[in-house]
């Protein structure tokens, strides 16, 4: 008799986990090589300033970040020196490089000297990484619950043949005239609220965060989590995927067969033959005895592996929020600062830590999927 660990699912799972580990190893090696390369390049760049270029930078009243001033310098230089366009381009490029090097010199930042990857700096990153992981897991969990509720609600409403608030308002006005237009204003208000909610759901996080910055403490960790769940289109994409799977599943033959055989198949809310509203939050329990129970179970089985795609997108959302809001003490803001000050070894270490977090979540999703497959007996 073969042991469970010899089953096709577990063999496939072992292969997948091995692939994830290999990916971590490969990325680790590539990033380590990149860190060494960039550090060497950086050290070679920290040579003393070219005095001939430094004297141009020292000219008073010239703001070298302004294109107009650069063009004025170009004209003045060409007027005074018989130089070619290529030569002046080279001088301007050197000036720009030196200006940037000067502006991004780590001694300009608070805390002084250049940092390198030591045990101390790693120790400093650990609390930030822990917070990042907690936020990430909270966002993942909340998004899953909220997206599931949204997808199920949309699916059931579509089965009920319910049209949008705006369309219902227009229909009411067409049938009842001005009186209905006033009486059913609630539909118009709901439609407006729905429109605003849609805009928020699709807004990049920074648009919403900056809109609320004067009213709320946007550096609060709970606000960060809420923002990551609600904005960037994460929730909509997540819900959209599950909804599409529910629709595809509901078109399959077994659904009709089950209804013909007497399984409940009506989609009206809180009706004996229909579904309770709680189905949005506890679909597995609340839909028992209804054909939706099977539709949901099968759709979820296909949805689980697709969650991996959403994980990277979710991390992208978190990175955007932490970086765009300039929240000091958060991992991604720190990453941006280390990139700015060309402390590439630390920046690359943070990138690697984020990659490892993504991989760990992906492994968990694969394990979850494998167990679900076993539960459903979909093995050979």
């Amino acid at each position, binding site marked *: 008799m073969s042991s469970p660990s010899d089953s096709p699912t577990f063999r496939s799972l072992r292969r997948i986990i091995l692939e994830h580990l290999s990916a971590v190893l490969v990325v680790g090696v590539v990033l380590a090589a990149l860190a060494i390369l960039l550090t060497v390049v950086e050290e070679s760049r920290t040579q003393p300033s070219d005095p001939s270029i430094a004297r141009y930078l020292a000219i008073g009243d010239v703001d070298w970040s302004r294109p107009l001033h650069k063009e004025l310098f170009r004209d003045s230089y060409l007027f005074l020196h018989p130089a070619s366009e290529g030569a002046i381009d080279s001088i301007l490029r050197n000036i*720009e490089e030196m200006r940037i090097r000067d502006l991004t010199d780590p001694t300009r930042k608070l805390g002084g000297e250049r940092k390198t990857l030591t045990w101390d700096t790693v120790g400093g990153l650990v609390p930030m990484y822990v917070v990042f992981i907690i936020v990430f897991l909270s966002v993942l969990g909340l998004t899953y619950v909220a997206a599931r509720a949204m997808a199920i609600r949309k699916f059931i409403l579509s089965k009920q043949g319910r049209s949008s608030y705006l369309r219902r308002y227009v229909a009411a006005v067409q049938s009842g005239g001005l009186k209905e237009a006033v009486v059913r204003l609630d539909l118009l208000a709901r439609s407006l609220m729905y429109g605003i909610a849609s805009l928020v759901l699709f807004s990049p996080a920074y*648009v919403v965060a900056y809109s609320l910055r004067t009213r709320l403490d946007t550096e609060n960790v709970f606000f960060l989590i809420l923002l990551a769940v609600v904005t960037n289109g994460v929730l909509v994409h997540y819900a959209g995927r599950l909804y599409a799977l529910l629709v595809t599943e509901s078109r399959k033959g077994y659904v009709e067969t089950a209804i013909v055989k007497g399984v409940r198949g009506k989609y009206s809310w809180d009706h004996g033959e229909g579904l309770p509203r709680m189905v949005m939050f506890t679909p597995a329990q609340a839909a028992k005895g209804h054909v939706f129970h099977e539709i949901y179970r099968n759709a979820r089985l296909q949805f689980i592996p697709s969650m991996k795609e959403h994980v990277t997108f979710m991390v*992208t959302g978190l990175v955007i929020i932490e970086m765009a809001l300039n929240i000091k003490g958060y991992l991604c803001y720190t990453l941006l600062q280390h990139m700015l000050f060309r402390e590439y070894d630390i920046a690359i270490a943070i990138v690697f830590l984020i990659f490892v977090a993504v991989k760990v979540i992906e492994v968990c999703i694969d394990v979850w999927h494998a167990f679900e497959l076993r539960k459903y007996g979909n093995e050979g």
Partner: protein
Amino acid sequence: MKVEERKDILWTLLWAGGLLIAGVWLVLFLNEPARERIQAAFFNTMLGALVAVVAALLLGWGTAHLLLAFERGGKRTAYMAGTFVLNLLRSIPQMIGMLVGYAIVTTLILRGTLPSPLVQIVFTSIITALFVFQEVVDLIRERVKHYEQLEFVNALLVCGVPPRVIINKEILLKNSLAHLVQKSVSLFGRAIFLLCSIDFIISVGLSTEVNLVNLPTTLGSMLANLDSKQDILVVGSVVTDPSMFGSLFFEHLQGVSVAFLIVYSLLCIHRIAGGMMERYRL
């Protein structure tokens, strides 16, 4: 066909209409220099997203063909290496990858390798494509696998049609065009989001004093502009002081219109992609 069944067309018209109204409003109430900056930013963003989609389609098509060739040719090691790299790219959060790409773009601009704004946009878009093209590979492979299970492919092979023609003409062009267009629309929205976000982060996250290189203006960098940020801050004030609502459309037009262009475009593009999915039952 009812409007409900043509949501993609409806949302395309709504998008075009919204942009037109916003354009007319800006002509009437925004000063010319600011308006020109917004126009340039909008054009650059759309161009960048379009190039990213084209690059993603080309990359996806090429990679899918390569993997199919490895699979059919029995080159198991090459096939596994290919899927491994593909999965690896999939696991890299797009924003992290794009930040690394931005560091490369900056270096190239400083060296004078990317002199014109157009080349800079194209290069940034190709980096964006690197982190979204996997979806195209998945779609093409899925479609090919689906048709390979049908008699259709065997029948064509027996008729002497080369496999390359079957994949490109019969499967992709004749039977998967709607899928590819829908995926392109969806990627277009994703590319706009990523391009705006990376530009916003770079412009805000890095000190404004350190304007490292003069990259072409996009809606993201435009929004990060100090004036625009102040305009956006006013949106929050409207919640507690509704009397300021009117000023949004006249006094704070620059930031509000840039935010509107980003959000409204993302919303409409998502609805167009969703509408296509429903209409063609993809």
